[in-house]
């Protein structure tokens, strides 16, 4: 990025709260039901139907607010945000305008060793809109179909300060926000199902300036990667425009995943006038301090605390600790494995290496894999004892990952036992040495590579089952006698 400019990013994140019912009616919020089967007069906007607030949605909002170090409002209310759109049957969205339930919080991120505190302006409760499906492509569509199942699902909109200075920081913020919400147990945070959605406000300014530049809002960011890339692209576009003497316009742009560019959707000149006013159907909320303290007392360990614990207890690096606390399931698996096999670094390496690779390749989460912490610990102990080599362990792990069998069972089935028997190895090594006189000669003349070749021959003869450390030892000794 151009050294003379600074990128300024703020994020607006919508988190779907994992209540069983919608925010203002008792319809189910289950994902993936048949269209319009989780709909009632309240959420489909029938005249005269009255909304009644879901207590659990308020509690989740308080929980999230506390997890994000926010002040929880003593009094707050709901307002109507008025606009026409086919996915909004009331022609207004119930939201919170000037009295959000949470405000003035922060979360901490760490990008390549640089720690930053990102401010959170506010978090407010609101209802989701329905889903609009265009028939055909977006340019040739002639009509759309409306499914109101999602209409009225509770959302918490979390608005950050413009405190991020790169796409990587914005990504770190969103990842941290996700893990906080997962640990707090308030949302599934599945970007692919839309339970975590993010818009980015991006501007650039000359380095050292404290004035904000013209801001562009980017929508349609469907993954952490697209968030990071869209910001980097957009900042470059803005800097190039400024360098060319162009004036930037405040507008909304959409991220085109296929072409990896942002494109203009609408300019802010036709900005909405939402005519917010207090919703007369909903009495205000007075949030008892006792309620807040009860929620605070029930908070589990949060990612930052867990990270600190991993660093202090096991001496893990920031990076490892951060990775292991990305989801509660990851941390639980780690903690459970370490109980059975106390070498935390080895456990963390396996989790971040083969385990994570297999999860990514198969688009799975920890809960989907069959391997248990006990079996991972058992496998690590077998490596330590020299029963299996690191290479065999990779095969065994993959088998455990898919079948849930124990390492012992897999070793038996595949005949994978490592050969650590002195006599057996001695015999094989004798044969290899006898069969490769020229290579042995090379070795004696100082060719280091020749040694590796001989080790390779032994491994080949044992189909990879020889204990490598032992082979090295015996072979060296044997060659000295040549």
């Amino acid at each position: 990025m151009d050294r003379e400019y600074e990128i300024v990013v703020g994020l607006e994140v919508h988190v779907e709260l994992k209540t069983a019912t919608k925010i203002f009616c008792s319809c189910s919020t289950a994902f993936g039901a048949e269209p319009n089967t989780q709909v009632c007069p309240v959420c489909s906007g029938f005249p005269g139907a009255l909304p009644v607030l879901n207590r659990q949605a308020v509690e989740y909002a308080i929980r999230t607010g506390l997890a994000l170090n926010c002040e929880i409002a003593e009094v707050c209310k709901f307002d109507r945000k008025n606009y026409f759109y086919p996915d909004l049957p009331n022609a207004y969205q119930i939201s919170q305008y000037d009295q959000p339930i949470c405000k003035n919080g922060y979360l901490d991120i760490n990008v390549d060793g640089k720690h930053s505190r990102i401010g959170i302006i506010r978090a407010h409760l609101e209802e989701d809109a329905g889903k609009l499906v265009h028939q055909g492509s977006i340019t040739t569509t002639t009509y759309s179909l409306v499914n109101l199942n999602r209409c009225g699902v509770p959302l918490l909109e979390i608005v950050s300060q413009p405190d991020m200075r790169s796409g990587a920081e914005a990504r770190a913020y969103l990842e941290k926000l996700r893990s906080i919400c997962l640990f707090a147990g308030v949302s599934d945070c599945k970007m692919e199902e839309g339970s975590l959605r993010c818009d980015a406000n991006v501007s650039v300014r000359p380095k050292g300036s404290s004035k904000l530049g013209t801001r562009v809002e980017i929508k349609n960011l469907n993954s952490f990667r697209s968030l990071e890339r869209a910001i980097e692209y957009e900042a470059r576009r803005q800097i190039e425009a400024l360098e060319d003497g162009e004036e930037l316009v405040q507008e909304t742009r959409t991220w085109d995943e296929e072409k990896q560019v942002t494109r203009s959707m609408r300019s802010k000149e036709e900005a909405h006038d939402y005519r917010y006013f207090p919703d007369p159907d909903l009495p205000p909320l007075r949030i008892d301090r006792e309620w807040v303290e009860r929620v605070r007392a029930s908070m589990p360990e949060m990612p930052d605390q867990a990270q600190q614990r991993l660093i202090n207890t096991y001496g893990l690096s920031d990076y490892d600790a951060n990775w292991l606390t990305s989801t509660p399931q990851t941390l639980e698996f780690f903690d459970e494995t370490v109980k059975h096999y106390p070498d935390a670094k080895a456990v963390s390496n396996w989790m971040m290496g083969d385990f994570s690779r297999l999860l990514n390749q198969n688009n799975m989460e920890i809960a989907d894999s069959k391997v248990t912490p006990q079996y991972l610990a058992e496998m690590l102990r077998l490596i330590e004892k020299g029963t299996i080599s690191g290479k065999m362990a990779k095969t065994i792990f993959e088998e455990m990952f898919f079948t849930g069998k124990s390492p012992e069972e897999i070793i038996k089935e595949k005949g994978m036992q490592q050969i650590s028997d002195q006599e057996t190895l001695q015999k094989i090594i004798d044969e290899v040495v006898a069969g490769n006189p020229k290579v042995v000669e090379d070795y004696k003349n100082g060719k280091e590579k020749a040694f590796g070749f001989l080790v390779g021959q032994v491994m080949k003869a044992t189909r990879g089952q020889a204990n490598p450390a032992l082979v090295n030892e015996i072979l060296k000794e044997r060659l000295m006698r040549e």
Partner: protein
Amino acid sequence: MAISVKQVEQVAYLARLELTEQEKQIFTQQLTAILEYADKLNELDTEQVEPLHHILPIYNVMREDVVQPGPPREETLSNAPLVEDGQFKVPRII
């Protein structure tokens, strides 16, 4: 406080109402009269008065998070002018 024809046009646009020139004149006069009447409140000193958000002195009306089945889909869709695949069919909106 007087409001202009332009403001009336803007409000009408936001409400998706089409007004004739004559209606615009009528509503400009009427809305001005209403706002002037409301202006009387400004004669009072409200410095120490909290804004009223709700006309009833009630707070915290909440329900438990328990699912109740809604009406069958046919009923939900029964007033829709056009339906396809169990969904409301609407004109393209981009």
